[in-house]
């Protein structure tokens, strides 16, 4: 465990050094994007009742995490593959999971201000208030785990060019074609059924129902589904990272 933590903190330092020039830029883009989703979608949807407002204001931080985990991470992994960073990482005497955790920490940290910004903008724009549960913290972490796990899985398993395409499809899916920013009832039945098997609606639900707890309380299902997706993604990643030619 000491070895793990030591490796983690050194790798974290390495990652921050490596990314220090791009990080501020990422911060800004992420924050603007999260706030932009709230404001932009408000233009798309002319009338906002409380449900619409709630979906938009909690969907934005969800999309922020999805972008980082399932778009930025696969693209970064693809780039690292091309640059030969893996030959180096593979020969380092560090636990594989510590390597992922160090990377993921930086990326999730990049998404955090955007999530807060989205909520602040939403309260101002829609004049809405939330019944926030402390469970929002594990919810954020689980959504992050799910997104990051899947993201690494794609980055490691797919060829670099393919990873870029997949991640672009994911962002369009999350923004427009998933019950994240609007309720699932608005989708055709067959498509809503497909989403039962995808992680997006569970990510949105975990965020939404911990930021504004429904009368029935915080549900357990999305947490379980997200944990499963996250672990599956990490398992694929670990398998590929330790595979020997």
């Amino acid at each position, binding site marked *: 465990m000491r070895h793990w933590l030591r490796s983690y903190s050194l790798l974290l330092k*390495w990652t921050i050094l490596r990314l220090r020039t791009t990080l501020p830029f990422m911060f800004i883009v992420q924050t603007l994007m999260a706030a932009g989703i709230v404001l932009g979608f408000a233009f798309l949807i002319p009338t906002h009742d409380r449900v619409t407002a709630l979906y938009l204001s909690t969907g934005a931080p969800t999309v922020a995490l999805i972008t980082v985990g399932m778009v930025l991470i696969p693209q970064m992994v693809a780039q690292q593959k091309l640059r*030969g960073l893996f030959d180096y990482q593979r*020969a380092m005497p560090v636990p594989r999971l510590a390597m992922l955790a160090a990377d993921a920490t930086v990326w999730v940290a990049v998404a955090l201000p955007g999530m807060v910004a989205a909520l602040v903008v939403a309260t101002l724009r829609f004049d809405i208030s939330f019944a926030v549960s402390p469970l929002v913290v594990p919810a954020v972490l689980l959504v992050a785990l799910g997104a990051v796990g899947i993201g690494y899985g794609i980055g490691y398993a797919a060829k670099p060019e393919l990873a870029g395409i997949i991640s672009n499809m994911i962002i369009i899916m999350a923004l427009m074609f998933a019950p994240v920013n609007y309720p699932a009832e608005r989708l055709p039945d067959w498509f809503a059924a497909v989403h039962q098997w995808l992680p997006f609606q569970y990510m949105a639900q975990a965020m939404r129902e911990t930021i504004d707890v429904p009368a029935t309380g915080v549900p357990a299902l999305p947490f379980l589904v997200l944990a499963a997706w996250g672990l599956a993604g990490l398992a694929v990643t670990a398998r590929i990272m330790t595979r020997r*030619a």
Partner: protein
Amino acid sequence: MLLEIDGLTKMYKKGARANDDISLEVDAGQVLGLLGHNGAGKTTLLNQVVGLVKPTSGTIRIDGRDPVADPAMARRVCALQPQAQAPLTGITPRQAIETMARIRGASRQRARQRTDELIEALELAPWASTVGEKLSGGVQRLTAFCMAAAEPGRVVMFDEPTNDVDPVRRRLLWEQVRALGAAGVAVVLVTHNVIEAERAVQRLVILDQGRVVAHGTPAELRGQDADRLRLEVVAADEPTAHRLAGDVDAVEPAVVAGRRVAVPIATGTATATLAWAQEQRDAGRVDEFSVTPVSLEDVYIRLVGTENGADATEEVGHAALAA
């Protein structure tokens, strides 16, 4: 023995035999040079030792332990400078070397001290604080060398550390390789720089198509060549070159390429041959000449041959020198 390799064979899927029944040993404090053509299987061998590639058959022991069963142990005990250029984007040589030393287990103080030492020894100070994307290829390569050498563990392996490096710094680098050996580390050094490698290594292994074709100290590899010298003459023109080639008191047939003549001569006849060459020059038949010991490169080429079996030289006399 710190590193023992026995009967190691590696066949990649859908590939040829990259390593074919390789056996070798490296003890603490020894520097082993690994030579061979492109594709001879050198990188494959190193990758198996650090547990990145799985052998098809044969055994590897690092201090008695098996890197195939325990790759994490192998990565802890062995430092490797991979053949690929180090990823230094956004990070300076000093940061890269120091952080890598820490990751490899050095204390903060030792990491800093080793980093300073190596930066000074390899004259990297002018670039020590320049980010990777602005470094020249040679400085990047030297940084990668330092990243492995700073905290070398018990076995350190360098895969072509002198590529892109200028002659002055190559010397400094060989100096550091020797120092690692002197400090008790087992060093494996892959290089194409056959002549210079001789200064740094105690023993050499020459690989060809995955097999060990020669193994020994530089003196052993020279064998009969040890008491031979090599006379090289640049004649005034080609016909003269052919005529002169027949005149030399040689121990093996001369090789003529254009105006150049290369002849192995016995050490005992060197004085007479030099006098002869001087006469030829005074007579205007020779532009320049030199006498040198047979280089390891000559030995290497004789053992491994040229890639396509022949080159632009033309044999005079009976047998071929570069068979």
